């Protein structure tokens, strides 16, 4: 019906339309769905017992623990810093503001390998601070601190990037109202600022966490690949894969995929909530 009012040039036949839809679905299935299916079928190729065995393997357990530790440090750190950065950028006009925005987005535009490499150049044995750290007996590169630094750098933009547009759109009138009513800074923050961005913040934290657990490139550079000590889950997947331990590799890959699916599900719910809130405000 509607096609009739469109000019002939944009009108498609039924066949073209169906072909386009099937092409899209086909590509989606090939590139998104199929890998996911492969991960789980490969992991479960010989039933649940090998999977359970792979999951209790000490190096794998260590990798899972290390990944959780890295996420547990970098996600809260980036949440607090991202929130602070977004608040400053959203609320104040100051010199260097646009430079700050660019800097925050930098990790998105730079290859993760570089994000890992900068820490090696700074803290590695031949890096700027390498000799100093060596004398103090501190190890950053090829150790847990390096993994955390690399992850923090790569995942920094997520929270800030989600909150900046949200805070700019909301403006500062509510915060000012709170102040004139006698609220102190922290009363304003906990009662007004934070509740107003809570869904957006949760969304940013979620993406930040997914990336923190899944990051490969930056982490690979600073890890040193010491099994059972500096291997995060994605690195462990690669190591097991190179050992021809298919079940082990796909089991951890499956675990990471489950995390991704869970993230997607929560993200969908959050998007729906945010959409509902902003929709109601318009």
């Amino acid at each position: 019906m509607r096609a009739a009012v469109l000019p002939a040039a944009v009108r498609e036949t039924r066949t073209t339309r169906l072909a386009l839809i099937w092409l899209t679905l086909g590509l989606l299935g090939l590139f998104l769905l199929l890998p996911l299916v492969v991960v789980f079928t490969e992991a479960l190729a010989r039933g649940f017992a090998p999977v359970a065995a792979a999951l209790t393997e000490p190096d794998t357990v260590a990798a899972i623990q290390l990944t959780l530790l890295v996420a547990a440090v970098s996600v809260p750190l980036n949440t607090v810093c991202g929130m602070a950065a977004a608040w400053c950028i959203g609320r104040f006009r100051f010199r260097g503001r646009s430079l700050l925005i660019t800097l925050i987005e930098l990790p998105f535009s730079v290859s993760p390998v570089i994000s890992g490499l900068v820490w090696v150049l700074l803290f590695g044995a031949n890096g700027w601070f390498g000799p100093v750290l060596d004398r103090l007996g501190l190890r950053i590169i090829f150790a847990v601190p390096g993994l955390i630094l690399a992850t923090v750098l790569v995942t920094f933009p997520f929270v800030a990037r989600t909150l900046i547009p949200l805070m700019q759109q909301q403006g500062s009138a509510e915060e000012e109202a709170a102040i004139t009513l006698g609220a102190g800074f922290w009363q304003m923050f906990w009662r007004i600022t934070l509740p107003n961005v809570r869904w957006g913040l949760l969304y940013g934290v979620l993406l930040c966490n997914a990336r923190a657990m899944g990051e490969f490139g930056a982490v690979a550079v600073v890890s040193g690949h010491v099994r059972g000590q500096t291997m995060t889950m994605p690195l462990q997947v690669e190591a097991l894969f190179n050992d021809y331990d298919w079940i082990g590799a796909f089991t951890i890959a499956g675990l990471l995929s489950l995390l991704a699916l869970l993230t997607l599900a929560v993200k969908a719910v959050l998007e729906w909530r945010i959409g509902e809130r902003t929709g109601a405000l318009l």
Partner: protein
Amino acid sequence: MADRGTDGGAAVTVELRGVRKSFDGVIALDDISMTIADGEFLALLGPSGSGKTTLLRALAGLEFVDTGDIVVAGRSMAEVPARQRGVGFVFQHYALFRHMTVARNVAFGLEVAPRGRRLPAKEIRKRVQALLDLMEIGDLGGRYPEQISGGQRQRVALARALAIEPSLLLLDEPFGALDAKVRKTLRVWLRQMHDRLGLTSIFVTHDQAEAMEMADRIAVMQAGKVVQVNTPQRLIAEPANAFVREFLNEGRPTEQSIG
């Protein structure tokens, strides 16, 4: 300067002494001095960009002044932060807390009071309900700001500002976001509320008719200066310059109601 002094003996509440403010070299307030009497209802009238909102924000402590002093009830406000001024402020678009119910909005100022001065929860609830009743929106306490009309939001904003029992009430374009009919009723109502509560009120408007109808005195602002302060009648009779005369004349047709 005060023409209102005829009824005599009214204590001076707000005094502006040579207030100046500029933003990145652009002058927003240019040497403003005037006195606003206790109980007075003053309109800051001027075209957009004349500095009236900046002056109101400076009074509330939301902007720092560069030089000059603001004295409220004999006390210099220079070192007093906004949160301690105890000034009621009604924002242009109300700035109601969107994630709180109407009742929680109104209770906010009472709930954030320092522990020693904070009322017990039961007392706060009672006070909030009394305020909502006073604003004639007693049954809206459980609603969220997005669920009520513009005129109702205006009343909630006023109730919230009044909850902290301010002696000075500042209103930034309080009727700007309302349609003409609601605006008319609310004008009368707000003026009655001011008289009844014995407040000193300063409100910003660019609407001449509104200023004429509501205010005891009008301060006409132009390019960061207060050009003239006087009662509506005297401003009409003796405009200080061509700008004041022309600006006020735009509002003449609806001005019968001031009698």
